[in-house]
């Protein structure tokens, strides 16, 4: 679709030029040359001046974190996020790619998943608990096995979270399906403009889940959850199975005291991930979980829920000193609450904060909520 068409579709011309987006943008605060409003302005101008291709080669369309902080507050309800995503599709098509982080390892792994190479990534599940090949519940593991290897020296243990999730489900009498053939949900591809690769991955996943006869798919990762729930239907029609986020699933059961929770004496703060909070609307379930752990005190950061600030990197791309600044700012905010632990609900937020802290002298523990839950459950 041309930029003209995108502008119409996403109501971008309703922009009041008020500046709320830029004032809210975590990137604009560290990179003064970036502004959501100005980026739109330039693209609109380029469309008017018949210079679409030139503007699609610009670098700053990749600077946006797609965190939706601006979208939440836009008084003209401009569908900014969809505009950026679609513009990136056009840019990718003419060969403008973002700068992949870590030498593109995650993108390469995802590419390999569509090249017919068999994966062997479920050994952790057989060690941790009981799984099946077919059944009612599908546990969508996502990138955790790969992240576990790539970021091993950070010590965040993504597979530890996966194992905890599995054990908790087993405790509830659920032996979910966990399969080697599972592909990446395609989130990063979708947001980095590679829509064809995204569609391939999605098609594989939908077919696999159907084949296993699963009617309920549980996600631990906000990005997987959001991608299946909101974006898969846009390309593949209504899905035949229910999309459930693990924290939603668990929070009702945990407050009914289905688990005998041991106290964990600590003061914590909670970071709302962009994809779980603003984009999926799940704010209270993680808080319910934290509240049910005896001895755990939650001190909210000032910028919480809809006001939460992105962890600084999106889709394993464009990681730079600006990302670090955003991360350190957020970590300082967490520290200012008086908490000694920053609880995250997204494997990527977990990795990004831990990485930022590893080169700073601020004392703060970063823990995944699933890890925290598991220790309270003595799992």
């Amino acid at each position, binding site marked *: 679709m041309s930029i003209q068409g995108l502008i119409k579709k996403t109501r971008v011309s309703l922009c*009041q*030029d*008020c*500046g*709320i*987006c*830029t*004032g*809210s*943008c975590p990137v*604009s*605060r560290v990179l*003064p040359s970036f*502004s959501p*409003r*100005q980026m739109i302005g330039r693209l609109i101008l380029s469309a008017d001046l018949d210079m679409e291709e030139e503007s699609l080669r610009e670098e700053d369309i990749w600077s946006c974190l797609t965190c939706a902080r601006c979208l939440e*507050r836009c*008084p*003209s*309800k401009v569908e900014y996020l969809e505009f950026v995503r679609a513009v990136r599709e056009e840019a990718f098509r003419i060969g403008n790619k973002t700068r992949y982080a870590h030498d593109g390892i995650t993108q390469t792994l995802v590419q390999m998943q569509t090249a017919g190479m068999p994966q062997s990534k479920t050994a952790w599940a057989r060690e941790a608990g009981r799984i099946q090949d077919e059944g009612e519940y599908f546990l969508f593991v996502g990138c955790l096995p790969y992240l576990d290897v790539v970021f091993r020296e950070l010590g965040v243990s993504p597979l530890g979270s996966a194992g905890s999730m599995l054990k908790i489900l087993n405790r509830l009498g659920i032996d979910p399906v966990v399969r080697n053939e599972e592909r990446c949900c395609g989130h990063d591809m979708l947001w980095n403009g590679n829509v064809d690769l995204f569609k391939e991955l999605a098609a594989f996943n939908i077919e696999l889940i159907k084949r296993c006869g699963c009617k309920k798919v549980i996600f631990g990762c906000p990005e997987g959850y959001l991608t299946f729930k909101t974006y898969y239907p846009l390309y593949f029609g209504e899905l035949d199975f229910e999309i459930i986020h693990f924290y939603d699933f668990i929070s009702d059961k945990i407050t009914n005291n289905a688990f005998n929770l041991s106290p964990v004496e600590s003061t914590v703060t909670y970071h709302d991930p962009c994809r779980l909070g603003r984009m999926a609307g799940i704010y209270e379930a993680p808080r319910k979980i934290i509240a049910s752990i005896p001895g755990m005190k939650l001190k909210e950061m*000032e*910028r919480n*829920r*809809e*006001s939460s600030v992105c962890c600084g990197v999106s889709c394993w791309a464009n990681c730079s000193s600006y990302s670090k600044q955003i991360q350190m700012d957020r970590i300082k905010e967490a520290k*200012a609450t008086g908490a000694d632990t920053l609880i995250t609900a997204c494997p990527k937020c977990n990795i990004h904060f831990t990485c930022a802290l590893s080169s700073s002298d601020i004392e703060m523990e970063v823990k995944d909520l699933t890890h925290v839950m598991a220790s309270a459950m003595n799992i």
Partner: protein
Amino acid sequence: MSKDVLVIGGGIAGIQACLDLADQGITVYLLERLPSIGGKMAQLDKTFPTNDCSICIMGPKLFEVERHPNTHLLTYSEVEAVDGEAGNFMVKIKKKARYIDEDKCTACGLCAEKCPVIVPDQFNMGLGTRRAIYKYFPQGIPSVYTIDDSVCRVFQGKKCKICAKICEAEAIDYEQKDIVFELNVGAIIVATGFEVFDPSDIKSYGYGTIADVITALEFERLLNASGPTRGHLERPSSLNIKAEIKQTEKKIKKAKARLKSLEKKNQGSTDEARKTLAALDERLSGLKAKEAALGDVKDIAFVQCVGSRDLRYNAHCCSYGCMHSVKEAIVSTEHGSEIRSTIFFTDMRAYGKEFHEYFLRGGAEYGIQFVRGRVAEINQDDHGRPVIWCEDMDARKVKKLPFDLIVLATACVPSKGIEKLANIMGFDSDQSGFVKTDPNKPTTTSAKGIFVCGCANGPMDIPSSVSMASAAASMAAQTVKGLG
């Protein structure tokens, strides 16, 4: 059939319409649901662009309305039902019980001095207090007191009746009942005004969580000489600390007395009592240090378009926000030589007569800084000061700016109860909830014989409300005279 007119709403628009009709020899009933007429204009400190004292220019009209031989005031009253048609409406009205005989009360105020119940004062937007027996505001008309039965001890079944004992005019009557009666009128004018949008819906602005973020109407009360601070420009956080200091001093007094009595009676150890007193003393010095650290208000920020021009809340512009912020910024300089204001705006809408000159004077003579950039969020810094984040669009930079006080220019929304009134009276509302009119017949509603003026029709300033009121009066007069 009736040649009388009912005006619903005792604000400046309703009052003007009422006077215009009365001056023509038409009998007018002015109905107001609050204990006193005056509306929002009575709550303002000054009016733009002349910077006239609001109540000073309104006061004479309030008196005139009450004294005019052709007007009848129905305050503390509400419309329950309307039947009939143009020329012959039957309106059912409930006059609520004040529990005070209006003919006997002299408004001397002794009752309120002695009343033990202290509650927040709505006229002062909750920044001050009033008693259970109260006069809505000092210059209120009618000049009588009212008992709020939702908080008065007598109506909660508790012992009191102090006001009745004190009242020399014997005006208190706890047995007074609501009166429901019918009024036959030929035409009705809806002048119910507007409501201030509640900015606590906008979480990113911190209203309700950050003490020093207030609405413009609250700011007007702080500026006003008959307001809760007698016109001293104070921050709500200072007021809170002052209140806490007062409370703590009271507690210290009690604790000292207790310690003394224990020492006298020589009964048991005084250690507990000493500890409590020491803790209270420490708390007091902490509070006093806090108060000293806060200092005077120096930097004020005005945030425009709060909840207005915003598809998430109200699409429409409030039309007077830019002007009242310039006004408040100018007036605030009279309250302290070091006071400086910054206005954060989307557009500076100064469309009326001499409005643009007013805005220019604000910048040139009163040092107001104008920043083009709608405020993105308001946080607190480490000292608890409110901080504004916005894009300065001329500088093309995101700025973080702390202030002592932040004033929100909020959206103008329809009056509470207008929906109910629309159902009762059968007129159409527009998509924002205001009374709908045809652009070619600006005071005529969709119901024949029922007219509208002022902010009930949509956001407008005082001169426009007054003009429209005269227009609506003219239309109503035509209806009752059998013309038009």
